[in-house]
């Protein structure tokens, strides 16, 4: 479970995230929905521990990220916007490197890599160097390295960007299986259909703060909208801008 309370972050005096709070429970996919520049990526970077917040609290499975960063990060897997791989290493070697960095002993690591390759359908690419991999293949390897240590919480920042339809469907299936196993998944996107199809809870972020949260149906009901797109516009775009 991931709990975020009153999170704040500024870049050169400009507030990117201000007083943002939400809770992502176990066994559910929580979608962070927002326009470009709304603060989704900054929020995910702070939850992952890559960015230091200027204020607020983040707890991962009850552990404070600021007080127990190592233990908290060990419970977290993250596939953020940086998906680079090591092109001179094979898929298996890329995964092994991150497994070792996460402290998995070599004897267990071999078995775990085979397991991850199997989950992601990467068996045929296991011993190929990652140079020249397609966008979808690269995303799968990056996801594999994020889950190599079997984290109980997973952060994904717009993971379907640039992927073809079969790969997106494969990823959705995988995330649903992880949710069914009780894993807490936070998934950011600005693609409304994707959020509707996948997420159990939606947190709408606008101008660095939470504009609304609930299930997709609850958001539609609250804004008296017939679909999520209309609800999203009602919640995030100022009324005078809608009138234009």
């Amino acid at each position, binding site marked *: 479970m991931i709990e975020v309370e009153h999170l704040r972050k500024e870049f050169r005096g400009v507030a990117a995230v201000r007083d943002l709070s939400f809770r992502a429970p176990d066994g559910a996919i929580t979608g962070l929905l927002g326009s470009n520049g709304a603060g989704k990526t900054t929020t995910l970077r702070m939850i992952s521990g890559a960015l230091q917040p200027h204020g607020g609290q983040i707890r991962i499975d009850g552990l404070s990220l600021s007080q127990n960063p*190592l233990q908290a990060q060990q419970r977290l897997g*993250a596939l*953020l916007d*940086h998906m*680079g*791989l*090591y092109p*001179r290493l094979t898929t298996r*070697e890329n995964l092994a490197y991150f497994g070792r960095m996460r402290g998995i002993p070599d004897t267990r690591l071999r078995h775990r890599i085979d397991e991850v390759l199997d989950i992601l359908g990467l068996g045929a690419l296991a011993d190929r160097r990652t140079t020249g991999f397609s966008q979808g293949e690269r995303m799968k390897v990056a996801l594999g390295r994020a889950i190599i240590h079997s984290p109980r919480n997973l952060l994904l920042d717009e993971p379907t960007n640039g992927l073809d339809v079969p790969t997106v469907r494969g990823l959705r299936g995988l995330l649903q299986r992880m949710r069914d196993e009780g894993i807490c998944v936070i998934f950011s996107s600005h693609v409304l259909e994707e959020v509707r199809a996948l997420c159990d809870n939606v947190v709408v972020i606008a101008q660095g703060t939470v504009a609304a949260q609930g299930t997709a149906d609850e958001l539609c009901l609250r804004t008296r909208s017939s679909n999520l797109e209309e609800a999203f516009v009602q919640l995030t775009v100022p009324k005078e801008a809608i009138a234009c």
Partner: protein
Amino acid sequence: MLNQALIIARKELTDALRDSRSIISTLLYCLMGPGIVFMVSTTMNGKDGADSVLVGMMSVFVLVSAFSGGMNVAMDILAGERERQSLLPLLLTAGARRHVILGKWAAICCFSTASLVLNVVAFWLALRAHFPAPANAANSVLLWAAGLIPLALLAAAVELAISTVCRTLKEAHTYLSMLVFVPTTLGMFTVFFPKLAAGWGRIAPLIAQQWQVEHWWRGTGISILPTIASGVVTALLAALSLCVAARLLERDDVVYGG
């Protein structure tokens, strides 16, 4: 947690050894000096002052090899990592950023030290007709332990610190290529103005090592205390450069390039 630094160093070595273009380029840089000095030695054979010219040239190339040996690895290891967007995932797994710096520095050190060893061995093969091998084993141990190895550690640390602030491989290549001019220019200056190597010059990085190499090659002996002092100063500077690199890697604008 030091274990993480070792894991990073091992991975970086494996990665760098598979980059054949970079290895060939490093080898060519490393053997260029002995090749040039060998040609000069054949044309100057028997002429007055030939030995001084050869030793002077050789000492400059030895300094340069410490920097050129790790240059390609240094630019790929951090600026390259940022450019291909694999730095952030790595930082999410590492306990402390100083471990990342330590691991990457260890990998660069292997290359800069190997380059120095290869360079000196190639000089010995190229110039053994002019200068019999320096026979004093104590001098040789002193030169390597307190002179040349600290120089390789310093070169690797400075290169890593520069690579840390560069956003792309191209940017790192530009700055690290300019860095190689420091030992080249300073070395040439000391050849023409040898008085620079007297007094404080005996413990100043680069100047001290050049003086040590020249005297070792001539077989005239190296003073123990100034050599050890220069080694300590050089190692301290390397440690300072590593601290700077680790501090830089804590900064958001350095990690994200924003």
